[in-house]
């Protein structure tokens, strides 16, 4: 993405008001609310007044127990579901504009692909859909498949892949257009240690290359290794947002900090 495409924006937080430019801010979520109506019952809030700002080149870990609302936030960011209220921008552009996803690479929690396509065909489609030129696309596909250890299976239908291979194919698809922002929903779930290392190394490489990485995870050791900052979400409320060291220093151990924060919040809510 070129810097010129991002316009300066004004983000209004509940507590603070500040200006951010595209040079610094790539994802901004302001006062996001989302609730679901289930079986005619009253709408129950899933996300309440969430404010979150991710800077350019930052690796941000989104933590929270099951059902905290992490995936909901990611799905709203990708415009798969609609928020009840709030302003969400990527590179200063509204997420309602489909063109904004040109800058985004997305990996769902459980990637499911078209069964009869091969990895190579899938990546070719992904690259073309994101506007990658034909001449550089083949080179990129070949590099990605090699990097994620999928070259041997590139001509096989995806339905024959193992879970780990499917997850890595999803990561390759997310990265095929070399996006500036990577949104990864539980990128390491269900992977064996080798697969986890491969994906973790890939995320580290993206971080080194100055890409913005926003990912949710349950695996705290990975978060500790890969993130600059973390956000902790519980029952739709952001409990903490700050540098990973600050979070760790709350108790001296990342896992203990996480557990005590969630338990305190649950106790506080009764």
């Amino acid at each position, binding site marked *: 993405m070129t810097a010129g495409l991002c316009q300066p924006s004004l983000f209004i937080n509940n507590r603070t008001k500040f200006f951010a430019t595209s040079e610094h801010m790539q994802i901004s979520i302001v006062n996001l609310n989302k609730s679901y109506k289930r079986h005619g019952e009253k709408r129950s809030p899933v996300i309440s007044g969430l404010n979150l700002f991710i800077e350019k080149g930052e690796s941000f870990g989104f933590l929270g127990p099951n059902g905290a609302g992490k995936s909901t936030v990611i799905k709203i960011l990708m415009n798969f579901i609609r928020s009840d209220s709030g302003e969400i921008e990527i590179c200063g552009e509204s997420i309602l504009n489909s063109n904004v996803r040109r800058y985004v690479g997305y990996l769902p929690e459980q990637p499911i692909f*078209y069964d009869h*396509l091969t990895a190579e065909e899938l990546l070719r489609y992904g690259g073309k859909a994101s506007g990658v030129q034909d001449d550089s696309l083949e080179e990129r596909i070949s590099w990605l498949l090699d990097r994620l250890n999928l070259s041997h299976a590139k001509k096989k239908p995806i339905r024959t892949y193992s879970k780990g291979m499917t997850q890595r194919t999803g990561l390759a698809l997310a990265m095929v257009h070399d996006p500036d922002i990577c949104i990864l929903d539980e990128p390491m779930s269900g992977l064996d240690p080798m697969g986890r290392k491969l994906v973790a190394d890939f995320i580290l490489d993206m971080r080194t290359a100055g890409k913005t990485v926003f990912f949710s995870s349950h695996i705290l050791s990975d978060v500790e290794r890969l993130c600059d900052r973390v956000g902790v979400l519980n029952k739709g409320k952001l409990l903490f947002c700050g540098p990973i060291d600050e979070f760790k220093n709350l108790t001296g151990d990342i896992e203990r900090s996480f557990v005590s924060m969630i338990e305190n919040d649950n106790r506080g809510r009764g």
Partner: protein
Amino acid sequence: MKHIWLVSGITIKEGIRNRVLLGVLFFALVMCAVNVVVTGSFTRDLGKVAVDVGLSTVSISGLAIIFFLGMPLLAKDLDKLTVYLVLSRPIARRDYILGKFIGLNTLVFVSVLILSVITAISVKLIMGLSPAYIPPLFSWTVFAMAVFFSFLSLVVMTSLSILYTCLSSSTYMAFIFTIGTYLIGQNIELVRTLLKQANPEGSLTLSLLSAASWIFPNLSAFDRKTSAAYGLDFHWSTFGITTAYAVSYTLLVLFITVLVFNRRELT
């Protein structure tokens, strides 16, 4: 436009590699063989029976492709969220719907083309074996027009199947709605005509049926088996009006589908 072709491209690829398509084509081939064998046992109107069975095979096979290939492909996208891999790209939801529609109709078109060639061969064979029973006015142009109308009715049904899949939360319901619409569309005009004859001064049922005929497609307008069997020429204005009806109905359904799909939460 580029995005629409991309979505239709992967829909076609996925469809072609699906065994359901082969199964439907195999069924059609068997039906054509049966046509040749069974028609021989009729003692009159051989030509009409051959054309009727042949064109019915084309229609039924086309419907089978919509029901067993098209709808499951779309339903899988929405139920298993394969749609994420499309909509996580800079592809608008409108382009996704149009791409799916074009992709599915391309599959239906190619199948109808193959089936109509096979049907034409079987009809030609039957007429060759029993030249005395060839209707004197039989024309391959009218036969081709009947096939084209059959395809138009399938285009209308494809658009409706996409709408129902986007509207309902369950594939099963979408399936039921599509079959229901097909049956209503095939018979509504006949029932209306019969009711009109029985109650020339009108009734509540007739009014309701008239209202329904504005909502459901009049699929009987696309049924030209009799014209094809006897070579009854139909006027070009009929051809133009019926084609315009199919196109405008389809566009309206697609417009509603895009509105519905734009509001749908993909979870």
